[in-house]
């Protein structure tokens, strides 16, 4: 794909990219620490990934292969438009295959396929401050980060166990990075938290509206908070994927009719398609005759 003329490579001007790269370098040097940066207006609304798109623009090179996912899917509006945006403004090759990509921008999922050392994953973050719901003062939360006073987060976990018998946080589950900084992993399901631990790929987090960038360097310890007698546990819907039959992937529940019909499918569309191409068939996958009838 050829880049549009009249735009700098990857939309942002070079000085802005330089500023964002400096913030990224600092973030990588202090894993889990939120670095402020001069977030720019982007041609998409806040909450659609303005932070992630700026980080992507700053680290994208001409030889990169870009993949964009939204809730695991490559074919949703947000993913399609961001992929096309960089296809046009940077002229980079885009893909939907996790293994082919060198740069993955994601909203709320980590791909099921394990990431490698030569890959970078960029998360879109709505709220970078994990303590925001517990302590409204940003000055105070900064002090708490500075002094590593994270007892308050455990009070939240205590309350959950007291009320529900288990920690009820199902997404954006708080983690401790490199045994030092408390970090919001962006609204990925708690199911994905273990994938962040010792991940070979570089993980970058961009929050556009909140103007923060943070990072987890490759092979860094990421521990989900828990109690000794209530260890962290992941949950997934107790089903197999209806299309590919996977029993270990994170599932979406799709309502299929107005009579209570529902289908559980892999949220990671690339993972699901790869498995189907390899011959795995789920219980509710359309048969060849059904496909022909369509």
């Amino acid at each position, binding site marked *: 794909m050829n880049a549009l003329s009249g735009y700098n490579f990857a939309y942002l001007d070079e000085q802005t990219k330089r500023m964002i790269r400096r913030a990224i370098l600092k973030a990588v040097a202090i894993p889990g620490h939120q670095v402020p940066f001069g977030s720019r207006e982007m041609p998409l609304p806040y909450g659609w990934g303005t932070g992630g798109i700026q980080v992507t623009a700053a680290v994208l090179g001409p030889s990169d292969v870009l993949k964009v996912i939204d809730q695991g899917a490559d074919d949703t509006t947000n993913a399609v438009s961001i992929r096309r945006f960089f296809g046009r403004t940077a002229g980079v090759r885009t893909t939907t295959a996790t293994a082919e990509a060198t740069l993955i921008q994601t909203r709320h999922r980590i791909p099921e396929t394990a990431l490698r050392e030569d890959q970078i994953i960029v998360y879109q973050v709505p709220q970078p401050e994990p303590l925001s719901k517990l302590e409204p003062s940003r000055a105070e939360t900064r002090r708490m980060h500075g002094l590593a*006073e994270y007892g*308050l987060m455990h009070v939240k976990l*205590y309350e959950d166990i007291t009320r529900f018998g288990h920690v009820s946080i199902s997404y954006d589950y708080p983690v401790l990075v490199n045994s030092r900084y408390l970090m919001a992993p962006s609204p990925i399901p708690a199911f994905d938290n273990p994938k962040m631990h010792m991940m070979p790929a570089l993980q970058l987090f961009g929050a556009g509206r909140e103007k923060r960038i943070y990072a987890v360097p490759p092979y860094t310890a990421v521990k989900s908070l*828990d109690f000794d007698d209530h260890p962290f546990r992941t949950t997934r819907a107790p089903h197999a994927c209806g299309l590919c039959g996977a029993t270990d992937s994170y599932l979406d529940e799709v309502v299929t009719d107005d009579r209570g019909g529902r289908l559980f499918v892999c949220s990671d569309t690339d993972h699901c398609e790869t498995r189907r191409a390899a011959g795995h068939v789920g219980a509710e996958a359309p048969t060849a005759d059904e496909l022909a009838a369509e």
Partner: protein
Amino acid sequence: MTNETLLSARGLSLSFGAIPALVDVDADLWPGEVLAVVGESGSGKSTLLNVLSGRLRQQDGVVWYRDPEGRLHDVHAMPQPALRALHRSDWGFVHQNPRENLRMSVSAGGNVGERLMAQGSRHYGNIREAAIDWLRQVEIDADRVDDLPRTFSGGMLQRLQIARTLVTHPRLVFMDEPTGGLDVSVQARLLDLIRSLVRRLDIAVVLVTHDLSVARLLAHRIMVMQRGRVVESGLTDQVLDDPHHAYTQLLVSSVLQA
């Protein structure tokens, strides 16, 4: 009682603009001792408490604190993390208004357990057990452990605040009018509770109050303040039964004899 003070202040001075809040105040506190600071509103009692606890910085003078290992620390020269750690563990602060200290949207058990979790306790069962034990010690039913503080009465809130403060077994507790705003019968029960807890756990207390009967009941020693100065100090009974300074005489005589 040992000869070594737990907390000692020398020459504390602080003024807010032209208003002197503290003028050359000395104070000593020995382990296990209850020291009452009495005086009228605006006499500098609460300011003294805030300066002694390091929450406010004086303009002149020094506050020394002796840690359990016997080392002396200049409270206002301590690094912020060390002072905050001290406030979470070895020290406690009981406010007049328990709502300032409690988290109203967190259950009673969570409130009591917070200091334990801040110190690194990571075992839910143990934290909960400690919380229930402390609720019992401050005479709150163990089955209220999961209730929110907003469902508690004023007296219960104050007792909950005390449980939350004492759960880490502090050696020194600062109390700012702990019985203020409570009705008389609740006050009496609370005083009784504070007295027995302090005796049993051997806690040193700096108690700020304007109520001489509270001081009489709880304190070993008393300091009378007026316009930022300590006008009289000594053993509680001695000061209250035989006041020397004119202001103390006024204070004592203005208490209604029941």
